[in-house]
């Protein structure tokens, strides 16, 4: 298990390094030098030279890469061109809001997904099972921003039950919670479909397995059979899909935060792209990549913890 963990973490770090190199290369590919973009068309050559020196752009390429990595390793992601604040501070200020949105979206997906999946198992082969199947596929097919727009129209504009924009008043938990409902549902709903299908398939497969019969043949109580012998296996592919979902949910947040005008990573990155605020764009992408790798690696380790066959395959 330890060897496998080290391997997985090393792989995640390697991916991160590749992403950073890619981003570094992007700065060179983009036309125009970063200094004139940062300072604007009316900058004097002296100012430009000063900034180029301060940004380290006059140094050799390996030197620049080395500085970039060293700075990133210590959490220094550069300075926001507009607000002149460290990029990491800007990100950390809005990240909890996106994290909360993502977590609540994931709750929708997991609770509704596992619930509907189990209902489909209980009523397998009936009309309800087929209806849930059609519903799940529709939920997967419709993009989250479409759901966002329609739910906004129905629940906020026509019915007026829930707030249309913003994240709620600061300090007022009720208003913040109500502001969370629509955007999180819009993001989570497509994952409800995935998880429901997956839970249905893997539960059906496991409950028909020979070892479930063995457990029953030794008179184990049905709760032990389902929770210890069946769900533990059925949950493994679900964890993998939830981890992938975590990444996709964060990218959906970019659209959905814009639709609902919520502060968060999504609005931060769209705003930064519009204003050509490259340090913020790069910092945010790097930060999200690192976060996503963290989630996926954690899920891999959890799966290996739950299923000994996975760790043996990867060890062997």
């Amino acid at each position: 298990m330890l060897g496998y963990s080290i391997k997985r973490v090393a792989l995640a770090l390697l991916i991160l390094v590749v992403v950073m190199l890619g981003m570094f290369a992007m700065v060179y590919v983009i036309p125009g030098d970063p200094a004139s973009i940062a300072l604007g068309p009316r900058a004097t050559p002296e100012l430009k030279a000063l900034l180029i020196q301060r940004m380290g752009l006059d140094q050799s390429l390996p030197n620049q890469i080395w500085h970039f990595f060293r700075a990133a390793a210590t959490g220094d992601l550069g300075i926001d061109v507009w607000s002149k604040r460290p990029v990491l501070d800007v990100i950390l200020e809005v990240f909890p809001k996106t994290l909360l949105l993502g977590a609540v979206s994931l709750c929708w997906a997991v609770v509704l997904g596992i619930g509907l999946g189990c209902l489909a198992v209980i009523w397998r082969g009936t009309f309800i099972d087929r209806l849930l199947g059609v519903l799940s596929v529709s939920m997967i097919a419709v993009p989250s921003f479409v759901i966002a727009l329609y739910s906004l129209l129905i629940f906020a504009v026509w019915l007026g039950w829930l707030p249309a924009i913003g994240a709620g008043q600061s300090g007022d938990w009720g208003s913040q919670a109500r502001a969370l409902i629509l955007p999180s549902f819009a993001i989570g709903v497509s994952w409800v479909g995935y998880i429901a299908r997956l839970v249905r398939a893997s539960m059906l497969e496991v409950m028909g397995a020979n070892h479930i019969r063995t457990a029953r043949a030794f008179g184990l109580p049905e709760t032990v059979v389902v929770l210890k012998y069946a769900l533990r296996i059925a949950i493994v592919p679900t964890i993998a899909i939830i981890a992938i979902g975590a990444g996709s949910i964060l990218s959906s947040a970019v659209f959905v935060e814009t639709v609902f005008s919520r502060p968060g990573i999504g609005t931060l990155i769209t705003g930064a792209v519009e204003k050509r605020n490259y340090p913020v764009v790069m910092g945010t992408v790097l930060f999200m990549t690192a976060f996503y790798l963290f989630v996926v690696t954690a899920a891999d380790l959890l799966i290996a913890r739950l299923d000994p066959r996975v760790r043996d395959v990867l060890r062997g």
Partner: protein
Amino acid sequence: MSALLEVAELSVTYRAEGGDVNALRGVSLMAEAGEVIGIVGESGCGKSTLAAALIALLETNATVGTGEVRLNGRDILSLPEAERRKLRGHDIAMISQDPMTAFSPVLTMGDQIVDFQQHSGLSRAARRARAADMLRKVGIADAEICLRRYPHELSGGMRQRVAVAAALMANPALLVADEPTTALDVTMEAQIIHMLRSLRTEINGAIVIVTHHLGVIGELCDRVYVMYAGQVVEEAPVDDLYHAPRHPYTQALIACDPGALGAGQGVLPTIPGRPPDLTAPPPGCGFAPRCPLADGTCHSKPPPRVRVSAQQTALCHKVVS
């Protein structure tokens, strides 16, 4: 005084899309304590359904039409599920068909064997110690290591030994082995049969071995029930079955046993045709379409059960006592 295990006129039907399948059609058998009985037949003859009924674990789409399975005089099929659950793993134990898939792949052998003894009332540590003792008895030297292993880390033969050990630990009144050696290669099969033979005396109850393999029956059993199309077509002590089979199906089955193929016989005989469709069983004898002796009566009237000797019966129009 009734027998330890008595199956009386048991009929079991499966609900299925293409029509209900009459998997068991009035099966009767009995077994005394200390006896080993064999149930033999080809695929689809209903022997696995019978095995499931014996451990009171029929599929959810199976319904018991008529008949009873009495263990120590109690009809186990009419008990509520909670009562049946108390019997399983205590009075009744099973050795599963396929050792590859019989254990949960994500739990250690020890964890599962400890769970399987949940009727014992012992602590988990005590159950584990008991499991280690039993594993040594079935020929696993490194019992402690084996308990820490996951199923995929053991060979098929090892897993089947663990399965036998788990069943023996229940000290059951009835031990049902459903195709205990089918999934194993020939050397493993021989080892497991040898082990089962040496353990016969350890078991106080009755053992029922379900198989399509006549060799296994000959090695292990006292008496044999031959099944065909959901019915017991012949019942006989094992020696009589081999040397004086009476039902035409049994005769054909023994002729087809590769183990009995003599020198100079180049071609293995087979039984032409196929078993009848059990969604619509024939009115007469189920074997009639494949039987060399069959006449009009065989096709139209159900065959009588003819008693050939004190311990041998055959379900056939053509057998005379």
